[in-house]
């Protein structure tokens, strides 16, 4: 608990606020789905928020995160405005890349969010390459890459982790093990007992931990970050968690899953759990809770209003921008 002990009350309360805001974001979004406005198919992360918040809280601005489909909280901790996120989800010009891209894989170079990909797992080598840049540039920055148990079966997981190991790159692999890849349960796509042990096959530490414990995630990432910044290489953190919603909106939450399983995991919900801890430490009371919740609601009201009011992008913008501008003495010919 070396790092966790250094967290001050205001850090803990801020983490709490971020958890609440992320949950509220996801709940509102899923609630809006199907009722017009929301264009990007929601992949709700409810139940998994502690991973994103714990991992990203304590990162530096220059550190880069590369979120999975299920790491809403990473955008939030990194400070990507909820207005921008929601406008993107609505397909509006106020969203990332003025509507050209989904928010799922958006980038925010200044705040430290790397451009992802809809091809699950393919972002792992890209995250590794960003870490390679940091190493070559002799920077102290690190990269935190989030992905699921499904992604861990992709070849790019293997190549990426091995590559990072060989060059001792400053990257942390956060595996969000929620027990499913879409509708396929873990035991149908994995015959091992855990993913953490795979790290040994590359020569760096792999740790399985409780992904619903925000402080456990924070601590593990801080340890890994120190290691990474010291040039000692990557770490794999397998965070055990569960998503309450279905893979994406459009089915009932318990579609193809046992409702009892969902209920069981709801008892381990990261938010009440952290709340109880804060209450026990005397840092939070019911009034605080209501205030934080109200603020999250208000922020989401604003975000949704912003998204609704933002116009759709002008059609003319569609056909431009496949290339960064070039010096015309270097590149001529016809780009079509």
């Amino acid at each position: 608990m070396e790092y966790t002990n250094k967290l001050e009350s205001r850090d803990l309360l801020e983490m709490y606020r971020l958890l609440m805001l992320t949950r509220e974001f996801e709940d509102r979004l899923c609630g809006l789905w199907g009722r017009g406005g929301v264009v990007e198919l929601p992949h709700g992360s409810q139940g998994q928020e502690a991973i994103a918040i714990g991992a990203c809280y304590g990162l530096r601005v220059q550190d880069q995160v590369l979120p999975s489909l299920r790491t809403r909280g990473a955008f939030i901790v990194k400070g990507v405005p909820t207005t921008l996120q929601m406008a993107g989800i609505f397909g509006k010009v106020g969203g990332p890349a003025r509507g050209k891209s989904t928010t799922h894989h958006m980038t925010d170079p200044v705040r430290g969010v790397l451009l992802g990909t809809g091809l699950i797992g393919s972002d792992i080598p890209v995250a590794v390459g960003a870490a390679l840049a940091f190493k070559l540039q002799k920077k102290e920055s690190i990269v935190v890459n989030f992905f699921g148990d499904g992604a861990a079966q992709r070849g790019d997981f293997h190549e990426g982790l091995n590559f990072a190991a060989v060059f001792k790159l400053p990257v942390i692999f956060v595996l969000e093990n929620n027990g499913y890849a879409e509708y396929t349960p873990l035991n149908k796509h994995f015959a091992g007992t855990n993913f953490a042990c795979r790290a040994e096959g590359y020569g760096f530490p792999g740790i399985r931990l409780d992904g619903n414990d925000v402080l456990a995630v924070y601590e593990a990432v801080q340890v890994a970050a120190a290691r990474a910044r010291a040039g000692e290489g990557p770490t794999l953190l397998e965070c055990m968690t569960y998503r309450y919603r279905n893979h994406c909106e459009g089915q009932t939450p318990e579609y193809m899953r046992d409702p009892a399983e969902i209920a069981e995991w709801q008892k381990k919900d990261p938010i009440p759990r952290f709340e109880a801890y804060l209450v026990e430490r005397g840092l939070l009371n019911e009034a605080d809770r209501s205030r934080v919740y109200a603020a999250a609601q208000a922020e989401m009201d604003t975000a949704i209003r912003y998204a609704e009011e933002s116009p759709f992008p002008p059609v003319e913008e569609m056909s431009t921008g496949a290339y960064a501008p070039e010096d015309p003495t270097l590149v001529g010919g016809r780009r079509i």
Partner: protein
Amino acid sequence: MREMMYRDAICEALAEEMRRDASVFLMGEDVAEHGGNFRATVGLYNEFGQQRVFDTPLSESALVGAGVGAAMMGMRPVVEVMFADFVTIAMDAIVNHAAKVAYMSGGEVSAPMVIRLAAYGAGRRSGAHHSQSIESLLTNVPGLTIVMPSTAYDAKGLLKTSIRTQNPVLFIEHKMLYAKKGEVPEGEYLLPIGVADIKRAGADLTIVSYGRMVDVSLAAARTLEKDGVNAEVIDLRSLQPLDEETILASVRKTGHLLIVHEAPVRGGFGGEVAAVVAEKALGYLDAPIRRVGAPWVPVPFSPTLEDAYVPKEADVVKAAQAVMAN
């Protein structure tokens, strides 16, 4: 005649072939209990059980590679690669293994398998990685067969044939067609691969298309009729083999050619069609050949942008008018 959706026609083709031939099996991500991301395999798991319909790990390279291995050992795998964009992950297994088995083995072995790309194309606000028309990544690879059906009827007949051929077939379905209904007769039928279908006969202009753009071309043809232009719409149905004769016969008749696909124009398969005609029917052309396709950008996400991106009836009409103006 009986009407059914494109996705159900696909499902029926799979079921019939699996009943007929015990070596046919289906694997892919969430194709079993879930019935496929585009719901084209619903019910197969219940009928055939998990020995013949099963989910795989999220590993497209192994999925297709394992299909090749199984095919070489006497099975007839149908492999579903969820979004066509994901074929980039399995390119090596397709291009360097499946496509080369027959030649490299001197005919001793082949890889009779169907790789269903379910699905290609834009229209669902899925962003740059789930909306591409990727066929021309595969059209320069000897050894492959490439089928792209535009109707439920074609999908069923061509998929059944694909399963029965001795070579690897890329069967590329369009996501916006799954819910489209069409007539499908009750009994069994097969459609030959490599035979284009004249979806609309006409005398003035040849429109060559395939996949989703066939409907867009047909709509354009109806509009053009009002302008007095009688367009023939040819649905290639397969890009490899290519039915050159049907294209050439039509162009010789109409003297005008327009090619329509959803993929970007530059480097798209339309170039191949144009080249065939510019070699073999040049003298019959009364006007320059034109192509309609997407602009030279990735598929955008926002509805206004995506709608502007996909070629539309008006684009086809406009291009047709330009061809006819000559």
